[in-house]
């Protein structure tokens, strides 16, 4: 699924140049890509953005701009984006639930990225554009909840359960969302679901976020997630607005 490494690297350079960074920072950013991401996890764009933003000392808003710029560049010059999937990363701590208890990693979730980069799926059937868009938006909202702290994450998980029930989502979907919200589960189950169901699932996530971090913040995050998802190539086949 991943494009040729050199093409992706070139796309990243274009994206970085579009941000008018000094050449030294662009080179440092590409070095980070070459050393830590390109060889083992070329699809882990969300993590790369996070890592890079941390090194550049970016604010949340700047990090958002960086992510959009890189996604747009890749969409235009590389042609495809794969939702964040990560092969096993040696030395990573096990995922932790909000209460601090480590989850026993399932075969699917074992190679998962840290909680800040929720996993869609590492293997499995081809993902529909609707799923890719849904997953990108859901992950953005979850990240905002995680930034608000452990208590907010706890509230989110509990509220998500209630809203999944209120939205009458299928039990297996609700269970998958619950695990995913705790940072320990995959959403692979949803990859081949019909597009119609994703709006209700995203609404459950929005409603849970509203309960966890407040409706004003949830509104902001939903709008940002929709804007960011517009940069995905899959957005041409499935517009993010269809999930709102």
């Amino acid at each position, binding site marked *: 699924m991943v494009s040729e490494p050199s093409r992706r690297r070139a796309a990243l350079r274009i994206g970085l140049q579009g941000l008018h960074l000094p050449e030294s920072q662009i080179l440092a950013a590409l070095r980070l890509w070459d050393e830590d991401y390109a060889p083992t996890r070329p699809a882990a764009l969300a993590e790369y953005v996070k890592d890079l933003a941390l090194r550049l000392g970016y604010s949340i808003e700047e990090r958002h701009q960086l992510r959009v710029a890189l996604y747009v560049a890749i969409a235009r010059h590389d042609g495809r984006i794969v939702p964040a999937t990560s092969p096993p990363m040696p030395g990573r701590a096990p995922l932790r639930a909000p209460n601090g208890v480590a989850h026993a990693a399932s075969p699917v979730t074992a190679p998962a990225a840290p909680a800040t980069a929720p996993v869609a799926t590492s293997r499995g059937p081809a993902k529909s554009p609707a799923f890719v868009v849904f997953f990108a938006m859901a992950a953005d909202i979850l990240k905002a909840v995680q930034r608000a702290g452990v208590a907010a994450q706890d509230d989110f998980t509990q509220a998500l359960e209630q809203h999944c029930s209120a939205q009458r989502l299928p039990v297996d979907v609700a269970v998958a969302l619950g695990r995913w919200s705790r940072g320990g589960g995959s959403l692979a189950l949803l990859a081949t679901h019909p597009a119609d169901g994703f709006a209700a699932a995203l609404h459950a996530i929005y409603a849970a976020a509203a309960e966890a971090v*407040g409706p004003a913040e949830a509104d902001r995050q939903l709008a940002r997630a929709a804007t960011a998802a517009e940069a995905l190539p899959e957005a041409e086949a499935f517009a993010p607005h269809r999930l709102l």
Partner: protein
Amino acid sequence: MLTLTPTARAQGTLEAPADIAWVITAAALVFFMQAGFALLEGGASRAKNSVNVIMKNYADLCFGVIAYWMLGFGLMFGASVAGWVGASQFFPELATGADASFFVFQAMFAATAATIVSGAVAERMRYSGYVLASIVITGLIYPVFGAWAWGSFYQGEGWLRQLGFVDFAGSTVVHSVGGWCALAGIMVLGPRLGRFSTAGVARPIAGHNLPMVALGGFILWLGWFGFNGGSTLAANGDVGIITVNTHLSGCAGFVGAQLAQRLLRQPMLMSISVNGSIAGLVSITAGCATMSPGFALFSGLLGGVLSVLGVNLLERLRLDDVVGAVSVHGICGVWGTLAAGLFYRGDLFDPARLGVQAVGILAAFLWAFPAAWLTYWLLSRIVGLRAPTLHEQRGLDFTEHDEIGYPEFQKELTHGGRK
């Protein structure tokens, strides 16, 4: 058309053309208060609900006045049955200038009482249920209490008026009744999604346009000169002191709200301060014709303080009142009515008068709150009042009206036309 036998109007009111002209002008000012409410409540709501809020204000005026003409006016001002309710003047012909101008003025009051609710229940009440409740308020709840306090324009006299209850322009009759209806509404509806954290902490949900809130406050204040000044039903010299008292109290309400915020170490918010001025205006409405300016100022000042404390109290009780209507209209209406008794010119601090005022205040609550609660409860069971959470996400502008207040800036809410 059903027209019951007209009853004789009390002698001496609205007979001079100047009186009629003044009352019609005052009615226009009170009509303009609807614009003030629409701007204040619309601005205090999120952008995605602004059309819905303004639609409700508009509906109060249109459905409400029709209901008032058909039923409410007769219940309130028809020939009184033992001081409890009017029984004539339904579908009134209003053949004379005096009758017509009196009706127009009173109809604007009825619409004001109903529209107080819309700000409190904003952002989560469905439009159809709201309109039906508004019809019940203007057609039944407001007029019945109005008959007790004011029902003497034609034959007979309301029982509260017979006791000596003083509420010149409606601190209780209009504002408290509206405030108690709003309280019932927010209790039946519940808070907006995520308004309170699981620990019970109130989360601020900023309005989308605070300049609109301020403009709404100014317009309401302007309208209040007609609201209080027109209640003389005569173009006479009393209008002068009434206007002075009204203005002083509004100013003092603003100051009182700012003092309260400062003393409570809260940020000094413009929205809360504007609410303070409205609270001051509510607080003088009952006693604007019978109070000296110094007491009017004190009434407004304390009203402003109470409006801030009331909002805090409601938040502690996890009651979600978007614009603070219960505090400003309900609680400050109570204070204004008490103040009218306490500071009655020539009869200051008379316990007997205060007792009558308290009876009126209690009667208003015991009638309006349960009646409105039952209305909302029945509507929630029969037609559905609460908007689903998906509608809260999308905004009631789109889900209820298929229109968006700010389409250029809300592209994420357009859904490609899908419901």
